[in-house]
């Protein structure tokens, strides 16, 4: 039997037209995207002019080297200046490449499903912040952020993840390798943490029999973390907020004090939480947006950089062999 679908399609279009209009007039469509594009465009142009002016300096130095009769010592000084400026140009070019990547990503946002749009805008903003603070190189940025270009991601974004498991000798306990969750440096500490972050956070799942556990590792780039954050209590809760604003609470079950690494100067905290089946299911299906930790000195909420980490880890830990 043949069914003529055309009238039904027209009806469907009419029904959904108001939604389409609404989405086109949403604040993100009208304000945020063009603003973001303008901001990035300005940053790219600024970077371009910085590169040009630095090239001018190099040209001037090269001209001086050719035209003036210099003794070998002065010549060496100028050559070193040229080298130093070329190095600066390279870093400027790398930074511009990063901004160009952010610009391309911004242009791609419109092709994302609506529910991903604000999250991806957030990700791009965090990328821009990292570029501004010289905390990311193009190679790294491309690896971490360019997966947006994959056609697949535009519909369902779960980047590739290298699944590696550790198993105890008796085979009873399985664990993922630690995966990075986010890094964080408070604005007021940025000048002290140029080469590294103040806090790097990693996580993994552990599986023992049918029980799942979540292990979190907080690495503070300072030996004074205990004075700043205290010692996490055994029953201290963790709140994981999903992208749809649903959330779960987990409870720390470890009393161990943080480990102070003398060699690296780091302080490492570990939390281990028992996870119920339903919470594990949520973690394996939904993007986690925020993590709130109740430190003895107050609670702190961190924005996730990699929303899919828990999904990847959960898939990996469930592999049977």
């Amino acid at each position, binding site marked *: 039997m043949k069914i003529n679908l055309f009238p039904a399609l027209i009806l469907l279009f009419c029904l959904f037209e108001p939604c389409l209009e609404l989405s086109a007039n949403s604040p993100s469509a009208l304000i945020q995207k063009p603003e973001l594009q303008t901001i990035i465009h300005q940053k790219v142009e600024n970077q371009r002019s910085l590169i040009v002016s630095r090239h001018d300096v190099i040209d001037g130095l090269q001209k001086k080297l050719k035209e003036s009769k210099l003794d070998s010592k002065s010549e060496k000084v100028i050559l070193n200046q040229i080298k130093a400026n070329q190095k600066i140009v390279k870093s400027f070019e790398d930074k511009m490449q990063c901004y160009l990547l952010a610009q391309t990503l911004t242009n791609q946002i419109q092709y994302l499903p609506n529910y991903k749009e604000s999250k991806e805008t957030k990700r791009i903003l965090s990328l821009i912040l990292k570029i501004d603070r010289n905390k990311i190189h193009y190679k790294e940025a491309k690896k971490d952020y360019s997966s947006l270009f994959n056609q697949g991601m535009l519909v369902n974004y779960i980047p590739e993840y290298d699944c590696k498991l550790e198993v105890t000798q008796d085979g009873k306990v399985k664990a993922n390798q630690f995966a990075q969750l986010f890094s964080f440096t408070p604005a007021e500490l940025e000048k002290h943490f140029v080469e590294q972050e103040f806090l790097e956070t990693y996580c993994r799942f552990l599986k023992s029999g049918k029980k799942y556990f979540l292990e979190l590792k907080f690495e503070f780039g300072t030996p004074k973390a205990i004075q700043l954050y205290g010692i996490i*209590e055994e029953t201290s809760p963790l*709140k994981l907020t999903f992208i749809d604003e649903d959330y779960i609470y987990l409870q720390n079950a470890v009393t161990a004090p943080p480990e102070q690494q003398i060699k690296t100067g780091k302080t490492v905290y570990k939390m281990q939480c028992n996870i119920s089946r339903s919470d594990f299911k949520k973690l394996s299906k939904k993007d986690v947006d925020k993590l709130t930790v109740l430190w003895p000195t*107050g*609670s702190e909420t961190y924005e996730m950089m990699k929303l899919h980490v828990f999904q990847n880890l959960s898939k990996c830990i469930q592999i049977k062999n």
Partner: protein
Amino acid sequence: MHSNKELTTLGLHLPTDPRWVDLTQYSLEEILSDHAYCEQKAASTCISLIQMWPDKTRLVDEVAPVVTEEWGHFRLVISELNKRGLKLGFQRKDEYVNSILQFTKKGGSKEDRLLDQLLLCALIEARSCERFKLLSENLPEENLREFYRHFMISEAGHYRMFIELAEHYFDQKKVRTRWQEFLDFEADIVKDLKPRGDRMH
């Protein structure tokens, strides 16, 4: 091995009497009403801070969203009361807060009074957080435990904000010394207050 003092929630010098959480179960309407007014007072205090110190930009920027959050909490407690067919009672005398208020400086410079106000707010948030933690761990009803976990985390964030604001506007050493004085004073008050199941503090 760590001393109990280190493990007390948010550094409070005296943990709450464990009988308190048991008593709350028998007077849910009263404790929820009292809780609602605690949130209302927190929001009002934040508004007053902004009115008194409009020239302190960081204070205004950080405290303003807390007004919204605390008022949101007030509404959450009201809806919890409604859900259970319970009514918001009248506001009652807050012995705990009134006692601590005696410790804050009345005279002295305006700046010194700000330090005490910020620390007073931090202290009330810290004690509230500790009480919410007890409720979130010990109440028999899962929904209520979840309800209080949410507040606990939020209050701990506010506590941190007030301490950080104090350390932003005043010398860190001065803040820490005064904070210890507040904690000692508060421990004495808590020790003397009879645990009541119809009061948050």
